[in-house]
């Protein structure tokens, strides 16, 4: 296991829009132990992405602290232990698939990765034969897969993903879920996955966090204890569906219907 711990402690963040303060995250604490897989669910615009951007040092918290391996996110990012895939594939249109996957190495100032390493990643995301293609020649789903390969390329210790499978169809999404689980099990990077797919969250994660509408607070923290490796038959398991339904209820009612536990 190579994961490094990621923690949010009493984090608050607000943005000012036309002079009005918009509280996006309010005194939120979340601990992702080394090697854990956490899925974040919540209504659109609730501040999930802001949490991820805080962990990437793309935003600075107003209060509280975000730490990776006990240090500043910025230094963790600079040292190259963090891998990231955004909602938007964010590929450079003038670079080929291979060269896009190589980009993090250039930014980090590392030696050029071995050709075999890149080829493996491309094969892993099912893009063999498209090594020399440019993003303009790929479909939306293919571009997203390049972004996932790029996130994995630096062999990260912390993997942050913001709806990386959003652009994929259901079949492809399940395939990618299977692959992601496989990769994750091998190296166990500490993973934070933002998603809208309840089944995806339950299928992949050790733990599902449901967030309230803005400002983001934790509404539910649900451990997922299925054995790994998880096969596709889990998707038809009764307990799996019960968990999905429970999470769905949390999402629907949010903090409006607090559970007895959180009231205590």
């Amino acid at each position, binding site marked *: 296991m190579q994961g490094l711990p990621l923690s949010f402690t009493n984090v608050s963040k607000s943005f000012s829009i036309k002079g009005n303060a918009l509280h996006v995250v309010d005194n939120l604490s979340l601990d992702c132990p080394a090697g854990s897989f956490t899925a974040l669910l919540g209504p659109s615009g609730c501040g999930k992405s802001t949490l991820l*951007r805080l962990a*990437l*040092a*793309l935003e600075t918290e107003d209060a509280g602290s975000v730490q990776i391996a006990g240090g500043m996110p*910025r230094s963790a*990012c*600079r*040292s*190259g232990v*963090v891998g*990231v895939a*955004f909602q*938007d*594939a*964010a*590929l*450079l249109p*003038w670079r080929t698939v291979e060269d896009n996957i190589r*980009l*993090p190495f*250039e*930014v*980090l100032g590392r030696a050029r990765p071995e050709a075999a390493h890149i080829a493996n990643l491309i094969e892993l995301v099912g893009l063999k034969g498209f090594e020399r293609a440019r993003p303009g020649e790929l479909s939306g789903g293919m571009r997203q897969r390049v972004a996932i390969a790029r996130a994995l390329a*630096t062999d990260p210790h912390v993997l942050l993903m913001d709806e990386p499978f959003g652009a994929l169809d259901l079949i492809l999404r399940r395939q990618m879920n299977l692959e992601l689980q496989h990769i994750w099990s091998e190296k166990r990077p500490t993973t934070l996955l933002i998603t809208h797919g309840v089944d995806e969250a339950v299928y992949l994660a050790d733990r599902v966090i449901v967030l309230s509408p803005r400002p983001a607070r934790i509404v539910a923290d649900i451990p997922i204890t299925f054995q790994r490796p998880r096969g596709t038959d889990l998707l038809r398991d009764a307990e799996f569906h019960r968990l999905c339904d429970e999470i769905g209820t949390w999402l629907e009612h949010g903090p409006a219907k607090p559970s007895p536990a959180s009231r205590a």
Partner: protein
Amino acid sequence: MIRVRDHTATLGLVLGLLLLWEVAGQLRWVADGTLPPLSGIFTRLVSEWREYSPHVIATLRSASLGFVFGNVVAVLAAVCFCLWPLTERLFRGINIAAFTVPPIAVAPVLVIALDGDVARITLAALLVYFPTMTAALAGMQSADPGAIDLIRAYGGTDFKLMRHLRLRNALPFIMSGFQVAAPAAVLGAILAEFGSGARWGLGTFLLGSLGRAEPDRLWGIGLTATAIAGLGYALSAILAARMTDTNRAVNVSVAAPAAEAATDSQWKRAMALAAAILLPFLIWQLLLWWAELSPIIAKTPLGVVDYLLTGKTAASAQERLFAALAETIPITIFGMLVGLGVAFGLALLSFTSPIVTRALLPFALVTQTMPLVALTPLAVLVFGRGVTVTLVITISVTFFAAFVVLVQGFALIPRAAFDLVSVYGASTTKKLNLIAIPASRQWIFVAARLALPKALLGVMIAEWLATGKGLGNLLNQSRGYLDYGMIWTVAIVSILLSILLYQLAGLAEWWLSRRPADGSKSWN
């Protein structure tokens, strides 16, 4: 924006005009043969090619060297402005001056201060700087925010962002900047040959041929200069098309790009503004010290103040300057307003009869590459040496520049907006009133700011070469009398005048836009 079928209309228009020209020339319709037939011009050009070639080579040389240096400086400046926004604010005064400067006014100053060859290259480079700098900066700033986040997420610094993302992203923008910069370099090179005593160059050739009553020679020079500028435009356009695979509209930025931090205090903003105003004068002073020129020839800022305001020369200088300004300013503003009005009318007409735009737009684009200075003598031939020629030049210069901007601006109005009012049964006039006219408000000002320096340049060239009045003439006379104080004064005053008019256009825009508008702010 310009599709293939549009080109047939343009081709028709151009061929028709050429045919009309030939016929008019053969039959000596225009001012007793001052418009020679095309065939006559070309025959003469071919037979005199030996005489042309050293001039063409000299101009090509200074224009291309100026193009290279100007672009290198422009891209480096854009990199600095992008990396350190404060530098952009400090250089804003210089940038606006570089955009509005009437090149004819600084040409004599450059000829005085610099070695002949260097002066020509510098003026060409100066005119290249602004279009490439703004295009490059816009390209760097428009990089995909997702890609910026990604590179930052891997700890990428501003320099890495520049290296891996912004520079490459700016490349197609820079190429389209070249389309404006290449003809500008030719114009700069020719203008700096005026009165530089250079033996070779199309500008020298033109001045030498002015006195001779040989219209076909003047036309030959004008057309050669236009062809060189057009070639530069075409080469840049091909490069740009290769970079982007799409035919992107050439958009000339007319406003110095603003990157003001909203959080800055009033005091900090005032400081930046003061620095931006002072910096050009500081650089002027430093350059003169560095060049170690005699203060009699090369006037410092204080030298100009002394000449115009405090010294013995003040009274006479003021009198001559004000007389010239009283001549130049009204005609510039009047010509510009008429040109803008005609452009606006024709652009609106494009809604009812699109064929007009289709025929005119590519033609108007081509006119943007014509070196004004080489065409002025031709206008003089046709329209004489009176006020008419100044007006004709100013109006047409303004018209073509404004027309291109307006039509391209109108093309940005979403189709759906028109469809929507059509659904409610709106007539064509209603559509114009409801959508096109409000939408055009912002483009009118863009057009005005773009056309303004060109209008002033047109007036000054006409005054220098033809009418013998106004600022252009004052500049030419002062050159003859070796009145260095006046040469520097006219240069500075015409730059300040240009900036003033530019700021007035900005003020008018601001004043209009703060009135409650009928939902007309912006479509994009």
